[in-house]
């Protein structure tokens, strides 16, 4: 007697969503903290007040970075908590399988990420008075949403290599810091040394930033289709590795 994989993945997704509902503080923190950070970013940009400095060029990539950062850490921590509490092993012994667990988590957290991306972009548009046409916002939203799904996949992958919540901490700067310096947000990737340009291709934010800059400059997703397609492809690649490395034990 057994149930189909889709049924089991849905059961996991449903359970994770129930946990989110049962923990409004967690949801509130994951939604509100990015808004506070973006507000502080705005205060910082206003204080710089350099002539010719176009805040709006940094606002959207900055928001994308914050979505990436927060989603990645929260997903990693939640999954490690599952491992530490013994429920990961129990799920496996009870018959749930790697792909179902990853699929269920991804589905549930995508709901959270969908709202988080929407809230953050609305906040950025309001604070920085972006005034883009709706089609531009839609494209930006799609990119940020894809980035957040990729960030979740990375969080799932990283959680496979940590046995305690504490062990997640060293992985945070490992992913986040190179993202800032190598993604092209601060310095153009072309100006980096050759090896760093190669390394940049492994940071999700590099692709997101490429597409976002194109859209902000008046282009479309079609103009930046390569980095745009790279986001779901990279997500798929990370998920394949994550499902292969997801272990049963603690």
């Amino acid at each position, binding site marked *: 007697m057994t149930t189909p994989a889709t049924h089991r993945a849905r059961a996991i997704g449903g359970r994770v969503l129930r946990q989110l509902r049962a923990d409004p503080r967690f949801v509130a923190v994951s939604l509100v903290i990015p808004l506070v950070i973006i507000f502080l970013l705005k205060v910082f940009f206003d204080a710089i007040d350099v002539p010719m400095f176009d805040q709006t060029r940094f606002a959207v990539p900055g928001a994308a970075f914050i979505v990436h950062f927060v989603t990645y850490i929260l997903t990693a921590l939640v999954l490690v908590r599952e491992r530490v509490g013994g429920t990961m092993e129990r*799920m496996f012994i009870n*018959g749930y399988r790697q792909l179902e667990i990853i699929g269920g988590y991804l589905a549930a957290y995508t709901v959270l990420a969908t709202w988080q991306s929407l809230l953050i972009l609305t906040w950025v548009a309001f604070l920085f008075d972006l005034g883009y046409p709706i089609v531009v916002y839609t494209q930006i939203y799609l990119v940020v949403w894809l980035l957040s799904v990729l960030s979740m996949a990375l969080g799932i992958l990283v959680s496979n290599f940590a046995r305690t919540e504490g062990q997640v901490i060293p992985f945070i700067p490992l992913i986040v810091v190179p993202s800032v310096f190598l993604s092209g947000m601060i310095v153009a990737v072309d100006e980096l040394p050759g090896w760093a340009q190669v390394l940049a291709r492994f940071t999700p934010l590099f692709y997101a930033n490429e597409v976002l800059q194109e859209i902000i400059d008046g282009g479309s997703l079609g103009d930046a289709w390569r980095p745009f397609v790279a986001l779901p492809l990279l997500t798929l690649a990370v998920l394949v590795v994550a499902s292969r490395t997801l272990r049963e*034990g603690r």
Partner: protein
Amino acid sequence: MTNHPAIRARGIRKSFGSIDALAGVELEVAAGQIFGLIGPNGAGKTTLMRTLVGALQPDSGEVAVLGLDPMAHRREVRACLGYMPQDPALYEDLSARVNVRFFAAAHVHNPAERAVASLSFVGLADRADYPVHTLSGGMKQRVSLACALAHQPDLLFLDEPTAGIDPKQREVFWDGFRELTAAGKTMVVSTHQMSEALECDRVAIMQAGRVLIAEDPQTLLERGRATIRIWRHGRSEEIVVDNYSVELPRLLADRGGVERVEVQRETLEQIVLRMVNDDNAGHA
């Protein structure tokens, strides 16, 4: 009904670094039995259970659970087994009902109904909608048992199911276990309580990663030593014998004028301790 035993283990070895958690376990569990695992902490009871449920790959040896290798046939084996870990391993922020329903959903199409039935079985129907973190330790254990039972598995592995719960609740648990085996289930239960070991159909004493002996509890008790004190002619004599039922008639027949006889038999706990100590001394 198949002819093979529910569990068969041959020479299972499992090491963690330099520690031999299992050092050649030999075991056979017949279907429909309550099989007890007893032994000191670190004897390998939990490692053995986790190996039998396919959570650990043994370094060597053969394991057959319901006739199948639990690693090679995980899907088939896991559909037929229920596992209750030592720690409750529940989602504390969710209700008892949601926990049981979730674990049942891996196997059955009617998890909601199974959750109700399973929580009723463990006597928690009235607490079904309480978040697990609001329940007592004993209640959490019962929720955990309900999770293991929900998909009506043929084979149950319960790792110290009554640890930390009071004697009255323990009695409730064991009533439930007997009900389950009466319905044809096979159960492997680890425990530190000798009173519980006596309730099992067979008991394996584990020590240093091996099964020292696996017998039914009455046979184990009969293997225990007895201290026989015989009074005759106003004096007493103390004799320690291994096989009391054979030795006592012989001793009495050899001695005339016996005025009084007192027999003190080893308890199961003393037998286990002696076997473990003898094994330790043998390996020292």
